[in-house]
């Protein structure tokens, strides 16, 4: 999978690239509008990560350029600027998702995966991991071809964990992911433990291997060993 990261903050760009590298993504990075337009004119990408405030102009120019060139790349806006207006303008110009800085890298990763799935499989998408099969559209999970009883939130958690395979996920990152829009309202992250425990038990009861590892004091990790 090939990504283009358009971001002028070097430190942030490096972190994003190093995080994504481990998950079979090739991530190219440009730090201004001009180079970005050059890149999108020449190459095809599976996904573009776009910062809006660039040194030589507004990131919306990229969206306009993509439209002009009839490109169908998926675009996730990553911006510190967050008003309803910029969001709406972004979506109107063809962006697929909007992630406000600061964000967890794990969150960015699952958003990219979700976007690519939507683009490539036209909404009819399945995520499979060894004996686990997740049908995102019908919101069902099968373990060893047998449907298990699972809540929407647990499916969300499962996708998040699988998407971030081999990554350590802090409790706060998981909590914020599960809370969605309400993440700003979080007061403590203790509820994560209950969700992980429930998911673990459900998978175990269905005869699934124990992929969810606890990283003591820090969080959890999805790992196949």
């Amino acid at each position, binding site marked *: 999978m090939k990504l283009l990261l358009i971001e002028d*903050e070097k*430190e*942030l760009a490096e*972190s*994003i690239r*190093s*995080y994504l590298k*481990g998950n079979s993504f090739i991530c190219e990075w440009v730090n201004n509008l001009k180079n970005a337009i050059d890149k999108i004119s020449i190459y095809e990408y599976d996904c573009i990560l776009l910062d809006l405030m660039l040194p030589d102009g507004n990131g919306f120019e990229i969206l306009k350029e993509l439209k002009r060139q009839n490109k169908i790349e998926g675009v996730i806006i990553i911006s*510190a*600027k*967050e*008003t*309803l207006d910029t969001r709406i303008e972004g979506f109107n110009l063809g962006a697929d998702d909007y992630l*406000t*800085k*600061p*964000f*967890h*890298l*794990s969150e960015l990763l699952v958003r990219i995966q979700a976007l690519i799935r939507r683009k490539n499989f036209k909404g009819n998408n399945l995520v499979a991991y060894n004996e686990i099969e997740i049908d995102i559209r019908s919101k069902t999970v099968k373990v060893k071809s047998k449907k298990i009883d699972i809540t929407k939130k647990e499916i969300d958690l499962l996708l998040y964990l699988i998407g971030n395979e081999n*990554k*350590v996920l*802090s*409790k*706060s*990152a998981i909590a*914020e992911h599960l*809370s969605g829009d*309400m993440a*700003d*309202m*979080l*007061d*403590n*992250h*203790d*509820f994560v433990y*209950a969700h992980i425990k429930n998911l673990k038990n459900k998978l175990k009861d269905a005869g699934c291997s124990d992929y969810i590892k606890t*990283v*003591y*004091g*820090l*969080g959890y990790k999805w790992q196949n060993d």
Partner: protein
Amino acid sequence: MTKKLLHKTSRAYLIFAVLILIIAAPLFYFLTEKLYIDDADEALILRKNEFLQFSIAQLKEADISIWNKFNRDIKIIVAKPLQKDTIFYSYYYDTLNSENEPYRELNLPVSIEGKPYTYSARINLVETEDLMKSIALLFLIIISLLLVGLLIINKRLSQNLWKPFYETLQKIEQFEIDKSNQPKLTNTNIEEFNRLNQSIEKLIERNTSIYHSQREFIENAAHELQTPLAVFQAKIDTLIQSAEFTEQQNQILSSLNDSVSRLNRLNKNLLLLSKIENDNYNEKQTISLYEAIEKHLDFFTEQAKAKNLIIKTELNETVSTNSNPVLTEILISNLFLNAIRHNISDGQIVVILSSNSLTFSNTGQPQPLVADKLFNRFAKSNPSEQGNGLGLAIIKKIADLNNWKITYSFADNFHSFSVAF
């Protein structure tokens, strides 16, 4: 007790007028009386001189009785032991009016055909009582005229002269620095009021611009913090992937993580406050409060589990408001969060939605909170608490924006926040 400006001036005028009149009345009386007596004395002396010059030489002793018969006021009487002229008061009985009348009388020793007589001339004076009565009446009329005049003039003044002042006053009273309705003060033809208006306009302008730049500062600062916070977060996320850490190191990383997400929330709340102040959420629509509460009930029930709280709801399903949907949700969420955050383990939360108010009551510390600074930014009752001190400020801001009234009360160990709309 404060009084209106005009009452004060009228009162001062009235007191002064009455005082002057009270002092002036006796003065006026004495002065009038003195003038009158002087005049009477002068007349007496004139008559005396005329008598001495023209009459006395021709007057025979035999004529005295005739003289006395036809002169009511100048009589020649039997000699009194007098050396020279004397002028004095005297009273004579007036047979017609049957009362004593005051007189001024001049006695003078004269000699008629060598025999000593006394010349006695008198002038009837106005009665003191009458004089006082007339003066009192006169003054009463003057006072009444003055009072009526002053009141009328003052009323006119209030309507005309002070009109621009009251207009200015009214506009300043309506002025709110966080609303963009800068008052337009009208020019008047009175210099002082123009100066007042100009100074007020300058003052308002300066304050508004300071307020705006401060507001901008908060917004810019919060915006500028987003990027370093994003880097901070990304670096921690990267760091925790890089190697196996000891449990102790994990805990350090975990608390770093918690801090950065707290910083993040704080920053977002500051931004939210700025946005509310900048009127970014001015779109309004009809919102079912019941649905807005139900929507997030699961989330907060989950959050409340950590403290083992019981949430009870009494929701009127038909209540709706005309307000901004985003802000209304934020208001409800913050009220929920507040009730959870400041609760005790195994406590309770009661949410009551009635037709005109929404009340969140929760158990918590056994003393009531200090109410006066409760809704200020960063006004924490307990500095070590988890909250960022902006929740209630946001609630207040949203309530104010919608002209809702938010009140805090404490009863039966329940802290209640009630929004009346």
